């Protein structure tokens, strides 16, 4: 069986600057992979190339064996790639429930004509969407906030909502950009327990993470980038003993995490 994601020799240049140089790795179905690296190592750039925001300068990206290089962000979402952003990004003026309903966009059947004519099918679909959105909220334990506006949420809940929106698309591959960053110890534990538990049961997960405690405790495998090159690809547990990785992180406080 094909891996869910194959990154083959991906390079990304911005002018003369090489943000990524021939990065290759695979992610197997059901895996929880951490993408690790110091600031500026190219993690976010790699996320953006996989998610279709910025196509790679060279190399290929395959989703379950199909070449998806250069596809747009919304096309990739329809093919089953979902992602969160490093900065908490929500539909700020909508409620928590409405945010998740928007995440269900690719599963709505509210064709324009049904909605225009207010056919029974339209009401049926609206009810079905709300039910599914409630299901996702319950899964992440934030259903009590359903009617609150997204821009009024505390950070911990807001970050869970970003995962809920992405999960609502029912992705094959979920890319989480620093899901635990900025959270308190308890909030981070709650988030990562969910990611490694309920979320992981539903899709393959790749996450960017700085915190070595989180990588070691929750992830199967880690890929480490430095200056846009892959310097480590192996068991997450072995990460802290690898000389190259220790060297790259030397003096970085988060190593202790």
């Amino acid at each position, binding site marked *: 069986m094909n891996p869910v994601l194959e990154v083959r020799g991906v390079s990304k240049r911005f002018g003369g600057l090489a943000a990524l140089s021939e990065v290759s790795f695979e992610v197997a179905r059901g895996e929880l992979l951490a993408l690790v690296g110091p600031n500026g190592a190219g993690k976010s750039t790699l996320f953006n190339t996989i998610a279709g925001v910025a196509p790679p300068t060279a190399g290929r990206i395959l989703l379950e064996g199909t070449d998806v290089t250069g596809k747009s962000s919304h096309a990739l979402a329809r093919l089953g790639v979902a992602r969160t952003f490093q900065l908490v990004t929500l539909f700020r003026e909508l409620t928590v429930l409405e945010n998740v309903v*928007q995440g269900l966009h*690719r599963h709505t059947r509210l064709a324009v004509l049904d909605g225009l*004519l207010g056919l029974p099918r339209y009401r049926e679909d609206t009810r079905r969407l709300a039910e599914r959105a409630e299901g996702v909220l319950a899964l992440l334990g934030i259903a009590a906030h359903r009617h609150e506006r997204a821009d009024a949420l505390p950070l911990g809940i807001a970050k869970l909502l970003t995962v809920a929106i*992405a999960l*609502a698309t029912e992705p094959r591959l979920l890319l989480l950009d620093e899901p635990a960053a900025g959270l308190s110890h308890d909030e981070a534990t709650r988030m990562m327990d969910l990611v490694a538990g309920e979320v992981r049961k539903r899709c393959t997960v790749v996450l960017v993470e700085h915190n070595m405690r989180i990588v070691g405790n929750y992830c199967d495998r880690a890929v480490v980038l430095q200056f846009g090159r892959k310097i480590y690809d192996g068991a997450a547990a072995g990460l802290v003993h690898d000389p190259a990785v220790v060297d790259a992180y030397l003096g970085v406080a988060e190593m202790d995490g």
Partner: protein
Amino acid sequence: MTVARVAALLLALIVLPFVATPYALHVAIVVLFNVTYTAALYAVLRMGYLSLGHAGFIALGAYTCVILSVRLGVSPWLGIPAGGLVAGLFAWGLGALTLRLRGIYFALAIFAFGEIVTAFFRAFDWFGGPAGIPGVPRPAFLGTPLASHFAFYWPVLVVAVLGIAILYRLQYTRFGAALLTLKTAESERLAESVGIPAARYKTANFVVSCVITGTMGTLHAQYLLFVNPQVFGSTMSTDLLIYAMVGGLAGFWGPILGAGLLTALGEQLFSVGYWKTLVYAAILMVVIMVLPGGLADLPRRLRAHFGAPR
């Protein structure tokens, strides 16, 4: 709105021409024009885009119909959909180019477009030049032109009701619901990441708005019996924005309420010329300062203020 309310409103609009004086019917027709334009403008405002040149699309519809009927002898009936089509084609091209801009940049690009449209018609004699084109024919029904207010009211009512119904229901399609996610560049990125084709949706919504605007513009020119570059200039564009803001931007019916009330008031002030602009501007300032949610927000504010004791 409930089905009963919609039915009552429709019934009132159908009965109206049988009981109203010709002057009252004239006011009703002008109200229907402006209410439709403002509802169409609101569809664009709702996705976070300030169209400062929407009257340019009224002008495109109006001139298309007038050129076809006066210069080329085409039936005024055919001119109505043709005007909507031309406005829609321009909206398509312009939308694809400018909807990637945000905030003031988009607003000014559309403002410039509105100015270009009227400047173009003013520049060429074949398009009427500064004086415009008089003698615009009205469509005929069973061989008789729709000359009276009573007769012309019906096509205006049909386009207004159809246009507003489409705009209203469109909010509840998956397309219309997704438009609420495109208000900022940041939220647009999130929308793309869940599979919403943002650029395509924005352009499509802009086209729908402008087709309805342009279609009504054809009837507007036929009603006035002339077109000139001034009627559908930038003042018209800002008037539409004033209607929408005075009515309130929180929901679909606010802009319609604002357009209805201010147009009816404006027609009373028509005889005193510039008073209309002055009064509109004054009302806008008062509403923005004391009632930022617009007139549609008034019942809620009153309830909050004089709320029933528990």
